[in-house]
């Protein structure tokens, strides 16, 4: 890593904060921290960190409010680190603009992997991925020719399947909620039609994955949405 990325940790529990900062500093990241929402928002705007780790249960402000206020002036990736593990909480946070969500207790490996994904998305802004060829492991997507290959073999996809895969591949590594996927592929009126999504994801899995029930790329997060897994 040429220059250490700056990570802002917004967490009110002192023990959790100490451990997070320890883990991050050990990896060579430059760290900032705040113990409440107001300080966190101020730090996020002033220091322009590369990633924000946000706890949802802060003493002064709701996590959603913190995210909204940060989003008003910054597109910094926000990773929610929360003890609330129910899918509704995850979906709400992701729909409110979080880039990713990890549940406490979180393993260091897992957290660091998510941070790397977030940092990568900063380096390659999503908009630029509409042309060229994107390759993940043996899966390749040619946006110019609208062609998808797995291990060099062309896969025939219907227009809907192609759109679905391109949305997933553009945000590879992070979870996209069912609602976001439905909105992007089918349009806002279809936001609640999870049945469509299930049917098409199944088709896509059976076309792309060697073992659909033990997938390499198209990972489901129960009750939340889907993630296109980056190869290790």
């Amino acid at each position, binding site marked *: 890593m040429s220059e250490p990325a700056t990570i802002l940790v917004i967490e009110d529990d002192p023990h959790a904060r100490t451990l997070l900062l320890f883990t991050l500093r050990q990896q060579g990241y430059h760290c900032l921290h705040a113990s409440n929402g107001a300080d966190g928002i101020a730090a996020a705007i002033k220091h322009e960190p590369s990633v924000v780790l946000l706890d949802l249960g802060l003493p002064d402000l709701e996590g959603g409010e913190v995210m909204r206020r940060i989003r008003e002036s910054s597109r910094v990736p926000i990773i929610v680190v929360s003890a609330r593990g129910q899918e509704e909480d995850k979906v709400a946070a992701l729909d409110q603009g979080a880039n990713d969500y990890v549940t406490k207790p979180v393993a260091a490996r897992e957290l660091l992997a998510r941070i790397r994904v977030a940092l990568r998305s900063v380096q390659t802004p999503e908009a630029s991925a509409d042309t060229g060829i994107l390759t993940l492991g043996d899966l390749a997507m040619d946006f110019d020719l609208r062609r998808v290959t797995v291990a060099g073999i062309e896969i025939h996809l219907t227009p809907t399947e192609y*759109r679905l895969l391109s949305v997933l591949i553009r945000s590879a590594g992070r979870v996209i909620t069912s609602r976001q996927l439905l909105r992007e592929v*089918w349009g806002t009126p279809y936001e609640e039609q999870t*049945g469509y999504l299930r*049917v098409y994801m199944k088709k896509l899995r059976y076309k792309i994955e060697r073992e659909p*029930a033990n*997938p390499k790329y198209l*990972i*489901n997060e129960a*009750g939340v949405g889907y993630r296109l897994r980056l190869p290790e």
Partner: protein
Amino acid sequence: MRNLAVCVFRQRLVARILGVNIVPSSRNRQETRAPPRAQTLGFERRGGTRRFGILRGYWTALCVSALCTFVSIALSLLSATAATGKLQNWPFAMTFPLGILFITIRCGVGPAIFMAAIGVLIFDFIFIPPALEFTMPSVRDDLKLGVMLSVAAIASVLAERLRQQLELARRQAEVERLRNALLIGLSHDLRTPLTALVGAGTALHESDLDPAQRREFSRIVAAEASRLDRLVGHLLKLTRLESGGLNTKPGTQAIDETIGAALCHLERQLGVRAIRTHAPEEVPLTSFDPVLIEQVIVNLVENVIRHTPEGSPVEISVFAQHDHVVVEVADRGPGVPPGEEERVFERHYRGPSPPRDDGGMGLGLTLCRAIVAAHGGRIWLENRPGGGAIVRFALPVEKSASTPEMSHALDAGAPRA
């Protein structure tokens, strides 16, 4: 030889009428070394009973109709000799609705309506003059028939509703029983890892330990913490099971997807173990709570990891059988002592040789059973021919599953910008 064939045929016919599939008893089955798929017979017997149960219902309705007719004719004759010498129809009007009510409760609405129709014909044939002839009923007889039919219909609907409620109540009681057993135990179990954590943590903090001791105590802290994490996870899953809190929408879940999600979570624990999955695309979408069913699969695979040697493979298959989707998790471990296939689902059952220090608490399979029961399904274990165990669970597929066809229409549309 011929006699034997006739005998078998007759046996089959009787079995078919009574709605029973001829299934070898479990002991016979083990001896005859049935092919792997045939092991699901235990399940087929259940599904089969329901399938033939429909035929059985109509057959019973026919028998009860005959009985009612005989009884009412007998009563009619008795009362006729006493009074006017004319066949009375009130015994029929009394016994037949009673019979219909019985059929409704036992066999459901269809056979009851069938019986009502038979009743009308018999009534017309025997009691409406001219007797022993089919006649177009007069307005008055029409009314009688109409009343009889509507009584039967109303009773049918009420009885059917009652039956459904009873079934639901039975299922809820079962889930409740399992849930309570788990809750009582869990809150106690939480203290075990906590005790170890407090002890090891205090020692690390306050005592002078040599490096080897420090390492050992830190290992205990890490192991007990993840055990606590698992227990709390189970506790949270249990709260979801509370009184019909299942998060299901008809026909919206793909089982292969949930298996994939479970395997993704288990990736690190699985290590180098070979996982083989077999999930045909035809297996229909169905409805279940994906978080809970993922937990079932995670628990089953964790069990395999815990009870089989490292490197021994795990096989997961899915298939559709009658109106169920069946998932099976098979291993090549030591299996379960014969006769204990049911006991493994009991709380705190940990097998004859509890595995190495792994934080297992004998909870996993009990939680699985509670979750599957809450879905109206069933879970069971069988020893595998050639060594190992198979746990299967079956989830009902509802009739009104969403059809992929409706979304084909969308696919045909022009791509959106």
